[in-house]
């Protein structure tokens, strides 16, 4: 390993060896107060939530200690400052994904963003209309549509996956029909790590005049997204999975859609005028932001976006994929181990830094509890994707998911502990 890199390098780079990027990660880890507290913790549950760097925590605190007021209606300076910071945060995020600020609606997270659409966009649909999802959706991009289906008689169809955990795009051609009103799909599977060929799906969909919603909860920490070039109609993600705070997320929607669909929740800020008999909605994006918004959290997610941009966002994602690949190589020959999802050299896309696995005869809970003793935090369960687990024939799996602070040494250590677990459990 290059000792110099340890000192000078503060951003990931594709030009670096994995060892060099790993020393960047070691450097980055120092920016995380939680790791001051637990220096030996090997935190690899980033697909569930990421840790938060000091700058994000400071940004959030800063709002409280320097500009704490309710937004949008306060004439006084403190209120103008709070409103300014809140709207600046929206602009930062808009810039982060290449959108216009008014196309960016703050929500609590991905789940609320998708529920918003299932209600608002959902109200424009009629019985018999169809929505296409995939078999690998997180419950957040499945249950809201099932609820809509019940409410309005909408039909749900599912793009099947191959045994390798890849989308069966051939089948999509069959599924698209005259009544298809939306394709809603995840960009990166939170279980398989598969990066879906959303570009192809969007092209196909748009040829048929169908809008596309991307669940970017797992994609956003791993790659820079530009909604102008990628061209989804809607896109949703959460702050807490991209090194930002809990309680904040974003729904991007193309202006024409946001203007067309009705508001979701009712309350302050989302209206233009209210009488006892009815109300007139405000303009976008406010029409979708009812009630006092999470002001401090907005400032936090904006700082997280800046932080991600500053450390080589795309290169970070590649580095995480590399760690995943290295881990797979080191554990694939453990007897009885099964790595879920696509194997090295699979045709479609790449695998994000996510590795879900099962070990024959060892329950995922027990594996996770075992690894926890060695300071390794892996998630065990169905990862909020029951239908996918069923499709793959596994009840629960253990999942390692990498973030900006994970190092090569940690990969070796996890691999060693998995070998040890095989012997001892």
């Amino acid at each position, binding site marked *: 390993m290059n000792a110099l890199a340890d000192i000078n390098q503060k951003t990931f780079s594709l030009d670096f060896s994995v060892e060099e990027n790993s020393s960047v990660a070691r450097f980055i880890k120092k920016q995380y107060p939680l790791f001051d507290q637990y220096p030996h913790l090997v935190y690899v549950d980033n697909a569930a939530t990421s840790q938060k760097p000091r700058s994000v925590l400071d940004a959030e605190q800063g709002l409280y200690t320097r500009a704490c007021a309710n937004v*949008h*209606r306060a*004439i006084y300076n403190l*209120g*103008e400052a709070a409103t*300014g910071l809140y*709207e600046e945060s929206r602009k930062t995020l808009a810039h982060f994904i290449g959108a216009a600020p008014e196309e960016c609606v703050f929500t609590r997270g991905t789940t609320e963003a998708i529920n918003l659409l299932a209600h608002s966009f959902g109200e424009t649909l009629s019985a018999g209309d169809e929505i296409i999802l995939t078999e690998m959706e997180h419950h957040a991009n499945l249950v809201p549509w099932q609820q809509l289906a019940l409410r309005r008689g909408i039909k749900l169809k599912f793009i099947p996956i191959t045994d390798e955990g890849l989308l069966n795009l051939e089948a999509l051609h069959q599924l698209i029909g005259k009544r298809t009103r939306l394709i809603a799909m995840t960009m990166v599977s939170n279980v398989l790590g598969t990066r879906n060929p959303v570009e192809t799906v969007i092209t196909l969909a748009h040829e048929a005049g169908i809008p596309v919603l991307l669940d970017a909860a797992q994609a956003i920490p791993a790659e820079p997204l530009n909604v102008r070039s990628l061209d989804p109609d809607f896109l949703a993600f959460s702050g807490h999975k991209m090194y930002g705070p809990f309680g904040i997320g974003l729904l991007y929607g193309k202006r024409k859609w946001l203007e067309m669909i009705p508001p979701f929740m009712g309350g302050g800020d989302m*209206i*233009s*005028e209210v009488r006892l008999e009815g109300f007139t909605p405000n303009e976008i994006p406010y029409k979708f932001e009812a009630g006092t918004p999470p002001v401090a959290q907005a400032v936090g997610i904006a700082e997280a976006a800046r932080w991600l941009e500053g450390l080589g966002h795309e290169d970070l994602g590649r580095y995480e994929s590399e760690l995943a690949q290295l881990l797979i190589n080191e554990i694939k020959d453990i007897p009885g181990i099964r790595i879920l999802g696509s194997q090295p050299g699979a045709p479609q896309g790449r695998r994000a830094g996510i590795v879900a696995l099962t070990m024959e005869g060892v329950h995922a809970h027990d594996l996770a509890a075992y690894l926890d003793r060695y300071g390794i935090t892996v998630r065990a369960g169905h990862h909020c994707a029951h239908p996918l687990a069923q499709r793959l024939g596994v009840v629960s799996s253990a999942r390692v998911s990498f973030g900006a602070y994970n190092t090569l040494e940690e990969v070796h250590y996890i691999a060693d502990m998995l070998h040890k677990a095989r012997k001892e459990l």
Partner: protein
Amino acid sequence: MSDTFDSLYEEIIRDHYKNPQHKRPLDSIPFVQNPSCGDKVRVSISLGPDGKIAETAFDGSGCSISMSSADVLAELLEGKTLAEAKEMVHLFLAVLRGERDVAELDKLGDAMAFKGVARLPVRLKCAALSWRAALEQLEKLTGET
């Protein structure tokens, strides 16, 4: 921005608020409203035989910022062509949206007094109100001619 400037600006704003030159009862024009406070204003623009704006007047209720801004607007538009007027209104609104530099307000007569307001995300809605109303009228006139 120094205090002296601030009070010069204030002087201009107060003057247009206390002694508006272009405020008179109008009707048959829809009000434009600021949802956050209920302030409302409407603007009437009439063209002279030369195709230039002969008269601009406003009507409404609101705070010193929204009312003085309307008076400043009215003063500014008179004598301009529709194209010039629209450009000015667009410039003013763009400055308030933060898309153009506040220094550009110097081109807009007394509207430069709103430089301070442009930094205040809540109050700039007050300042923008009459300009949004004027834009609607200007678009309508452009459609008609």
